[in-house]
């Protein structure tokens, strides 16, 4: 999930618990200002726009977080602070899925009495349709591709392309039962079932790419107005029945979401209370940072959640001289991690210095130190020079570093790398690319990155959900790299790793599976194709008006479902 | 020259402009007076201060860049020292002006009628309709055909002669007692010039106003003026009745002017008799007599010319000349040397 994402509790938080004392990090791992008082409008804003509010067409953590207000998926993460959210629970479904056929078939039973906003009952057909339409990537381009990859589709492409055909991978024996057939065993299918794409969509109301303009609600709120890319409001959905929904409190009467506000203004407005939440959840802007951390009253309103996100740099092993592992090692050793951290905003707003891929909160995490950058994290120049020697480039070499031009932090990271690698003679040229096409046309496109000598590519990845599969599968599996571009995996294509992944997927024992993913992490690190930077952290701010605030570790940001207003 | 009953009396008028390059003495001690119903012609070379004088009489010089001193008494009011509001009220009503280039002197964005109406209504508290009737009336008086239609035309829709007529109509709209025409016909063809000159003469007689006509064309002066003032370097160098100036001029510059001019009323002269040299700079006015560097008779003043400014002295009845040459000598030279040459036909 891009733009946030990730999960798991803070290392120091036990999970659960509440507090009413305003203090730094008071809503992280605990519920701050718990309340059951209904009413009010929660005002949210975001500076950029995100992909979509269409549950079948979204991949942003904030969007998955928010979608729970107006859609219900088959399963969901438990709502609560700290470790609570590491567990899944039924949402539309009465409980978790029931696997059979060695994990190749998953069956879900829907709760009775569910209704769409127009009062029509929600049936298993609507769930099937929702999943089926999300397969239509040419139209709904944004969502994850897990269902495309794992369902046993037998050539079925989706309701638009394969018109009139039934989806062979999904059966609906009755109105309340949904059965998924996979093409290989997969133990973690319940995670797939919490993806918003499993939210029911009435086929008659589906308008393809335009469905985002009027998403039919199955949750406690429905759209009252929607202006694409600018603004929308949610109001209570009177067809939603609390009795069918043990997870949602639905405190506010409505939500008011502004898109495209100015980032600094969002901070200022949250500070003065005219806004409640920065929807992006990525923390305050640098301008506000010194204020927030410097002023005790503001600091008491801030939290510092750790996101399951790795900010890193891919090292392209397909171009000279980086095709030599020693040269890649030289990069790993020479990089100054502290300046990398500074680039992302320092220890609190930026994150923890990363030594491996998987963030600490992911099960299976192990403390790696494959390429030590020294005690002060400023790089080990001697080892770097030795590696260069071994590589046959004793005086260093020249290559390019790619980054997304509109992202100041990535630009700063590129600058930081440029400075630190220059110490051993590795000369970097900075190349910014437009955000929108970074993966589709430039860094993500193998032919482009190789022909244009993109040796290093700044990247960032957050877990789709907090387990090894959710974090690693999209960035270390060489088979997701496509010649047509668009993959988030820019540099890792190790046959051995691919096999290890298949093994981990098939593994049904959770502990062993977690360990497998840990091993994959280590193996990838040893190949020196990824230079880990920092595990993302953010200094986020809650407004004075908010109640029932806590960080949902599944998303690494405030839980939008639970928050209320005074 | 100053007459006690004069309608306009200019005394020791000095108009200086301080500029970056020095003080420009455009008008430097000018005296003359004028009776109602009479016409004064002012002639002189380009830059001799004619226009500056006329603007001075209307009080149009900007206090910030012009230094005006002396007296300009119009019917008892001294324009130089009166307060600006008084002078403004006199402009247009008691004294009016016709400018050289009627196209640039009329506002391009307003109809001819509007501009005349405006002139009339500043001084007469009448309705627009009445003023418009007056404007049409005035246009008719100056000989514009179909005045009720042309009143709504813009200046650029008029021909040169019509524009000048319109200017005259505008100037006369409040029956001014003093009319100053600064080169009113220079921009016009001879045939049109003749029409305008006739018109001005007729109108002057009709209104019995005092008229100052400024020109460098001696022919025009001869047609209209009763008295003639010859300016050189910001000073009056000769003043007299038109007949005197044309028939018994006494200043070498005036001789030069007459000699420079081919005349249709005489036979073709073998050669023109130009004045040598160039007009003086008004910043570094030549010492002594401003004309001395160009004067053919400078030698006969015994060096006085370059050292001493000659006085304007009476040479005959109402005839004033500013020259170091003794009167008798001047008369002799004119009679014996210059006149014969001027009249020598081929």
């Amino acid at each position, binding site marked *: 999930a891009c733009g946030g994402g990730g999960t798991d509790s803070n290392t120091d938080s036990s999970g659960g618990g509440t507090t009413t004392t305003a203090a730094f990090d008071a809503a992280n791992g605990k519920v701050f200002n718990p309340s059951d008082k209904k009413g009010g409008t929660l005002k949210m804003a975001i500076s950029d726009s995100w992909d979509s509010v269409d549950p079948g067409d979204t991949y942003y953590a904030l969007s998955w977080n928010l979608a729970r207000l107006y859609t219900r998926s088959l399963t969901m993460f438990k709502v609560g602070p700290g470790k609570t959210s590491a567990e899944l629970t039924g949402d539309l479904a009465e409980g978790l899925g029931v696997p059979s056929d060695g994990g190749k078939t998953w069956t879900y039973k829907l709760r009775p009495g569910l209704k769409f906003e127009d009062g029509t009952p929600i049936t298993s057909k609507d769930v099937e349709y929702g999943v089926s339409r999300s397969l239509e990537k040419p139209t709904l381009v944004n969502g994850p591709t897990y269902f495309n990859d794992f369902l046993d589709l037998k050539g079925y492409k989706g309701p638009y392309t394969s018109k009139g055909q039934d989806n062979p991978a999904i059966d609906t024996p009755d109105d309340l039962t949904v059965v998924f057939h996979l093409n290989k065993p997969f133990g973690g299918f319940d995670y797939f079932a919490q993806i918003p794409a499993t939210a029911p969509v009435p086929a008659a109301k589906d308008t393809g790419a335009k469905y985002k303009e009027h998403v039919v609600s199955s949750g406690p709120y429905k759209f009252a107005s929607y202006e694409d890319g600018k603004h929308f409001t949610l109001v209570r959905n009177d067809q939603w029945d609390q009795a069918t929904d043990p997870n949602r409190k639905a405190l506010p009467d409505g939500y008011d979401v502004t898109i495209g506000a100015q980032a600094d203004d969002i901070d200022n407005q949250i500070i003065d209370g005219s806004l409640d939440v920065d929807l992006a959840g990525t923390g305050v802007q640098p301008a506000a940072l010194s204020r927030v951390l410097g002023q005790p009253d503001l600091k008491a309103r801030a939290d510092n959640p750790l996101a399951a996100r790795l900010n890193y740099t891919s090292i392209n092993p397909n171009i000279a001289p980086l095709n030599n592992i020693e040269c890649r090692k030289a990069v790993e050793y020479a990089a100054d991690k502290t300046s990398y951290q500074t680039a992302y905003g320092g220890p609190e707003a930026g994150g923890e210095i990363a030594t491996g891929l998987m963030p600490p909160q992911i099960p299976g995490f192990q403390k790696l130190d494959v390429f030590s950058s020294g005690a002060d994290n400023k790089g080990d120049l001697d080892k770097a020079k030795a590696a260069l020697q071994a590589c046959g480039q004793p005086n260093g070499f020249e290559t390019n570093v790619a980054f997304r031009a509109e992202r100041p932090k990535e630009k700063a990271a590129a600058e930081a790398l440029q400075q630190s690698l220059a110490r051993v003679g590795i000369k970097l040229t900075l190349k910014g690319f437009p955000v929108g096409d970074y993966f589709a046309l430039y860094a993500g496109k193998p032919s482009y990155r190789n022909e244009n000598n993109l040796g290093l590519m700044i990247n960032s990845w957050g877990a789709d959900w907090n387990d090894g599969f959710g974090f690693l599968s999209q960035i270390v599996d060489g088979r997701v790299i496509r010649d047509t571009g668009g993959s988030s995996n820019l540099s890792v294509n190790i046959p051995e790793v691919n096999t290890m992944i298949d093994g981990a997927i098939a593994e049904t024992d959770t502990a062993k599976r977690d360990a497998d993913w840990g091993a994959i992490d280590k193996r990838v690190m040893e190949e020196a194709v990824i230079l880990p930077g920092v595990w993302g952290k953010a200094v986020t701010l809650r407004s004075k008006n908010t109640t029932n605030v806590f960080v949902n570790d599944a998303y690494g940001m405030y839980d939008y479902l639970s928050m209320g207003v005074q | 020259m100053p007459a006690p009953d004069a309608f306009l009396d200019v005394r020791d008028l000095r108009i200086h402009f301080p500029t970056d390059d020095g003080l420009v003495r455009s008008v430097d001690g000018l005296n003359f007076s004028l009776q109602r119903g009479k016409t004064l012609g002012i002639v002189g070379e380009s830059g001799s201060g004619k226009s500056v004088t006329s603007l001075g009489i209307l009080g149009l010089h900007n206090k910030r860049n012009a230094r005006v001193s002396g007296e300009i008494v119009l019917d008892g009011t001294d324009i130089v020292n009166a307060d600006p509001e008084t002078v403004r009220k006199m402009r247009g009503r008691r004294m009016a002006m016709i400018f050289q280039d009627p196209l640039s002197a009329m506002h391009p964005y307003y109809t001819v009628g509007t501009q005349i109406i405006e002139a009339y209504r500043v001084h007469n508290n009448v309705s627009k309709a009445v003023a418009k009737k007056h404007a049409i009336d005035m246009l008719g008086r100056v000989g514009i055909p179909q005045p009720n239609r042309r009143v709504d035309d813009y200046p650029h829709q008029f021909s040169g002669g019509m524009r000048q007529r319109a200017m005259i109509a505008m100037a006369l709209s409040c029956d001014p007692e003093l009319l100053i025409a600064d080169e009113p016909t220079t921009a016009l063809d001879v*045939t049109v010039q003749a029409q305008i000159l006739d018109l001005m003469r007729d109108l002057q007689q009709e209104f019995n106003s005092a008229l100052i006509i400024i020109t460098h064309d001696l022919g025009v002066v001869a047609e209209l003026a009763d008295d003639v003032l010859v300016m050189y370097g910001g000073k009056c160098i000769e003043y007299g009745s038109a007949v005197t100036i044309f028939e018994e001029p006494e200043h070498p510059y005036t001789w030069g002017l007459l000699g420079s001019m081919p005349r249709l009323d005489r036979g073709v002269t073998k050669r023109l008799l130009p004045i040598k040299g160039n007009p003086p700079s008004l910043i570094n006015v030549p010492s002594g007599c401003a004309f001395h560097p160009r004067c053919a008779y400078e030698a006969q003043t015994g060096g006085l010319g370059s050292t001493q400014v000659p006085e304007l002295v009476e040479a005959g009845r109402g005839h004033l000349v500013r020259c170091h040459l003794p009167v008798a000598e001047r008369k002799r030279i004119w009679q014996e040397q210059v006149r014969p040459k001027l009249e020598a036909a081929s």
Partner: protein
Amino acid sequence: MTESTARESVTTQAPQQEALLSVTGLQKHFPITKGLFKRQVAAVKAVDGIDFEVFKGETLGLVGESGCGKSTTGRLITRLAEPTAGKIMFDGKDISHLSTGAMRPFRRDMQMIFQDPFSSLNPRHTVGSIVGAPFHIQGVKTEHGTKRAVQDLLKLVGLNPEHYNRYPHEFSGGQRQRIGIARTLALKPKLIVADEPVSALDVSIQAQVVNLLEDLQTELGLTYVVIAHDLSVVRHISDRVAVMYLGKIVEVADRETLYANPRHPYTVALMSAVPVPNPRRREANQRERVLLTGDVPSPIDPPTGCRFRTRCWKAQDICATEEPPLVVRPGDAPGHQTACHFPVADDEQVVGRTKAA
């Protein structure tokens, strides 16, 4: 011009004289375009079929009111403008449609003096380079070098040769006009066309330049076409005078004849309108003057037949239908051509006839 007899002989023998320049049926129409595709909708008939000759060594004066086509005629015969129709013979050769390149050799023999002494000299050039330009452009080598030649020319027109390196803005109008004249003389032309050479100058300076032009003519045997609107200057300087009205020549004659016995009503009116610097004649003068009414018609749409008929007091029906040819009228001196159906008779009692004194 030392001998007045010389001039007389020129005038009387004029028709037999060798023509340096002869113009037949010369026309210049400036198109007026309109619309997207620049369709020509009308034309300014600036010069509309004129014939005249200029004889070697004489001065032809061209007079007329503003806009009647004098300057255009001047520009046509110096080929600064391309004639719409008609023929220009210079020194026996047809130059009517020569290209710029083919015209170049003729330029040496035909020069032009311009009206405005301020705009006719390039402010960025020194006097030396302005006067030296003809040598440069025509690639003429001079005996003692260009500088010497230029200085000689400056001396010739009465300027200080030391001023070689000065810029035009440092000179007065009269001096500038002399610089312009020096430039035209550089290539020893046979014909000089002077378009209002003195009208921008002060009276006193005007006389200097007129004298200079006359002196140079005597000295160098030049032929002049002098364009002017000041009839007295034209009379002073010309041997023969052509009067133009609205793109046509209405009357040509030698100076004495024309001024003493104008035939065309327009010429009569024009002359009577000239103010005379004699205050005693004022009253009489006014009575004698022929006052024309109305304005000059537009050259875009000139009147049919005789163009002057709309303002002519003698006009009759025929004037509107038939265009009078420019011919010698019975009883007139040879070379006195008039384009009028009803020319003014010698003894006709027209209001405004002034006999030469």
